[in-house]
């Protein structure tokens, strides 16, 4: 019994370390700003998630106490990672990406970051919201 949870904790720690390292290495290795966004947002999230799971198993195994506030950090990271990724992608679009690379939209529509005066998708939902409210 002792051995099983030790193996589980060690396995999660090793896996987490590998993923965290790969995420950081991708940041150095990948060629363009947009591709560099892929590695850290995914790999590092699972890296930290793995350490947190290891920590949960550790506290059950060594103290017999179920410790679940680790889940809170995991949840928080999984919720915030897409948002930061979206913000960084948007900053990239504003500064670096040439607009001719982007797929074109039908009916002369623009992407939100290209149209003047709109910051995020808020503008697209504005009339719907007022419609619903009224």
């Amino acid at each position, binding site marked *: 019994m002792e051995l099983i949870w030790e193996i589980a904790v060690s396995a999660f720690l090793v896996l987490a370390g590998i993923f965290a390292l790969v995420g950081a290495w991708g940041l150095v290795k*990948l060629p*363009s700003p947009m*591709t560099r966004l*892929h590695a850290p947002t995914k*790999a590092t999230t699972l890296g930290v998630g793995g350490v947190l799971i290891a920590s949960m198993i550790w506290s059950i195994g060594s103290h017999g106490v179920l410790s679940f506030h680790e889940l809170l950090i995991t949840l928080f990271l999984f*919720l915030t990672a897409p948002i930061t990724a979206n913000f960084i992608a*948007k900053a990239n679009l504003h500064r670096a990406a040439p607009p001719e690379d982007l*797929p074109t939209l039908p009916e002369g529509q*623009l992407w*939100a970051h290209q149209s003047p005066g709109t910051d995020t998708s808020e503008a697209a939902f504005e009339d719907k919201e007022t419609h619903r409210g009224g």
Partner: protein
Amino acid sequence: MRRKLIPHPHLSLLLLVVWVMLQNRVTPGSVAMGLVLGLVIPVMTAPYWPDRPSLRGWGRMIAYALLVMGDIVRANVIVAGIVLFKRNADLRPAWVAVPLDLTSAEAITTLAGTVTMTPGTVSADLSADGRTLLVHCLHAPDPQSVIDEIKDRYERRLMEIFE
């Protein structure tokens, strides 16, 4: 009356759970404090969220969350493989426009978050009219298959939950 006292039942439940998790112990005290927070905060912040999103089916939501978690693990293995074993010259990054059938803001936010966390794709922007999602793929030799996968795997399920 009930609507006024508990404007957002899901938010109240979430606040209770988060508070108990922060305390790291399920004691009568922490549950009571969590209940107080879960009742007071939604009422105080109700003006910021005038509408209540319509959610249907706890079973479907849990099934979706499990599916996404499995896909996150799969995504990590795939991205790690690409980072470690693919030469930069062989990478085929691509921009993809995904036409959306979802209309509510909450549903599109969930879809964009899911797309970011799953294999090789990051959602970057929305079209100005909110009908198309701009997605960046790390390695997509066949962009159409990416669109089909997003629409079939995630959007269809979100349709059932939100609309």
